[in-house]
């Protein structure tokens, strides 16, 4: 199969290109992805073993229509039922699954759809993750906003009416250190009711610090729960260490964060196994920390700057819908976020079934909200984007569209008790 990921930039030096090619072609040139790097905290937890042992044994080919019907007929969905709902046997039952999912969503969330927007404050990255626009070998405009720039961007976003923000960075501990991110959280608290973080995984004491700075939710995408596959996609940098990433949500909860979000990047590996792993990761963590609010995202691969070939392979909208319905039926109380990687049409449809949160007014670049929101040409520099979005609707338009679907857009359902 043609590799859809590897792209050589003409800006790289000969030495850099050689190293890049070695990493791509010679596994022995890469570090052990299961071994912690210096400074990475190791916690004692059984969540990973509980979840992954079941994923390894998951044989979705064995489920039949009868298993799916039984799963849909039960009041409470067991893990075994969930496995059936994720299987190919459930594909003909998509409408039934959607009906059931809508019922469960209604019980726990009513007609509400929450809105948020992401803000990338820096795009420097020390990792080589082959599918990501921020990867260290990709030639994009790198940028890290100053406190003044962050403040300005946040003001522009807040003026649009947004009350929840998700702060993101590329994964560079040296360029965007914990203190820098903490300062961004403090600024965000001035403008927003709710502040979430999607940054590189950190240790418990660092999560505690960021929590004190105003962040209350932590999102970490595991990308794929298949460790062998993970190793072939995350070739360099601290992100290569799979188990440290897996335990990030647990460290965040131990540090006092109110909620955590989980996800696999669908299209990287076997999506059924990754969907099962994502839900079990969330399920076992919630059992261990019953107070934790949990939510699941469902990104699919998207094209990036310098590589428009990247696509989500076999995860079409139909499969994505099946996964999301299965998530909802198995974890009726969990938030489900659908990002602007998906089209407006898909998002308008899925909020009527099971999604409870969507982004609006999205940019995955750095420092370009003013020009995107107002159309105003700005002098300020702007950093390159992480991936191409599919749904570029503004907050106003998204808000109106949600209302048109007969649902209730909600900008805040949060009270800060930090």
């Amino acid at each position, binding site marked *: 199969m043609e590799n859809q990921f590897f792209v050589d930039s003409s800006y790289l030096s000969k030495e850099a290109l050689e190293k890049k090619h070695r990493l791509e072609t010679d596994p022995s040139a890469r570090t052990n992805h299961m071994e912690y790097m210096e400074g990475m905290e190791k916690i004692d937890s059984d969540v990973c073993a509980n979840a992954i042992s079941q994923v390894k044994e998951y044989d979705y080919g064995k489920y039949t229509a009868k298993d799916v019907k039984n799963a849909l007929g039960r009041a409470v969905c067991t893990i075994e039922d969930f496995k059936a709902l994720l299987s190919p046997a459930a594909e003909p039952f998509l409408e039934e699954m959607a009906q059931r999912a809508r019922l469960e969503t209604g019980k726990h969330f009513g007609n*509400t759809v929450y809105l948020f927007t992401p803000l990338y404050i820096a795009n420097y990255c020390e990792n080589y993750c082959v599918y990501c626009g921020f990867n260290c070998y990709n030639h994009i405009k790198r940028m890290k906003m100053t406190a003044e720039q962050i403040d300005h961007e946040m003001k522009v976003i807040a003026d649009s009416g947004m*009350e929840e923000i998700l702060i993101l960075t590329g994964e560079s501990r040296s360029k965007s250190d914990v203190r820098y991110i903490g300062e961004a959280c403090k600024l965000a608290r001035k403008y927003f009711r709710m502040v979430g973080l999607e940054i590189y995984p950190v240790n418990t004491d660092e999560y505690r610090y960021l929590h004190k700075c105003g962040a209350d939710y932590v999102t970490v995408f595991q990308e794929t729960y298949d460790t062998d596959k993970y190793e072939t996609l995350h070739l360099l940098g601290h992100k290569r260490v799979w188990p440290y990433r897996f335990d990030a949500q647990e460290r965040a909860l131990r540090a006092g964060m109110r909620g955590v979000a989980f996800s696999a990047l669908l299209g990287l590996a076997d999506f059924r196994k990754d969907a099962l792993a994502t839900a079990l990761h969330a399920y076992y963590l919630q059992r261990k920390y019953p*107070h934790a609010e949990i939510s699941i995202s469902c990104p699919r691969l998207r094209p990036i700057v310098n590589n428009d070939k990247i696509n989500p392979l076999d995860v079409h909208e139909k499969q994505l819908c099946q996964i999301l319905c299965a998530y909802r039926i198995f974890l009726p109380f969990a938030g489900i976020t659908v990002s602007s990687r998906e089209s407006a049409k898909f998002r308008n449809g899925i909020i009527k079934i099971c999604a409870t949160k969507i982004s609006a007014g999205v940019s995955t670049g750095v420092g370009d909200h003013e020009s995107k929101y107002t159309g105003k040409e700005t002098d300020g520099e702007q950093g390159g984007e992480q991936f191409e979005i599919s749904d570029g609707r503004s907050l106003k338009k998204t808000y109106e569209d949600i209302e048109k679907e007969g649902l209730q857009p909600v900008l805040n359902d949060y009270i800060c008790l930090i």
Partner: protein
Amino acid sequence: MSANDKLILGGREFESRFILGSGKYSLKLIEAAVKDAGAEIITLAVRRANTKEQENILDYIPKGVTLLPNTSGARNAEEAVRIARLARELGCGDFVKIEIMRDSKYLLPDNAETIKATEILAKEGFTVLPYMYPDLNAARDLVSAGAAAVMPLAAPIGSNKGLATREFIKILIDEIELPIIVDAGIGRPSQACEVMEMGAAAVMANTALATAGNLPLMAAAFRQAIEAGRKAYLSGLGRVLTRGASASDPLTGFLRD
């Protein structure tokens, strides 16, 4: 119904025994609850009201309706107390419904923390309505802590499962002097009627209305069901029904002359 049959909470009198819960809010729901269900008390999640949103729920509460802010989002007594104080600062008055959950899956209330928060807030002059799991000992502690009513759950929030805790609510009705307001899980007017017949002082519901096909019609049905149940209780029938009918040929007839 007797003109004197009022629901009294914190020294205030209410004609209606239907209270709108806060789970799923919409302006249409508030309108139907007030107009068609006759609600005089509406619960308000402080965390939802604490918004810059143009459609602030506070602006849509009709005059004459008593706001009952709740502390949803609180995970312990300390957080509940902070939210209650914030509600008072926001101008929501002195009523507060305590909701403390340490479980994001079932949203079951934590009775121990609820008792602590009740004691603190009652001392601060709040009219405290604690949402609780129907446990007699906890209910007695809530009375001692200064609660204005006790609000046991009928079934897990949003489950529409009806009176899953029927026997335990009955015990509270029999043993606790305060009004017992049944909260959470009431899915149908018939269940609201049944709980009123048992002697509950009021019923709180939200999902049952919010998810109905015709909101105003369902709101009206709840009103009538609650009134019917109340009348049955006042007539004395409620107790007879739940305790079994008396035999037409009394067992102790032989003692008569």
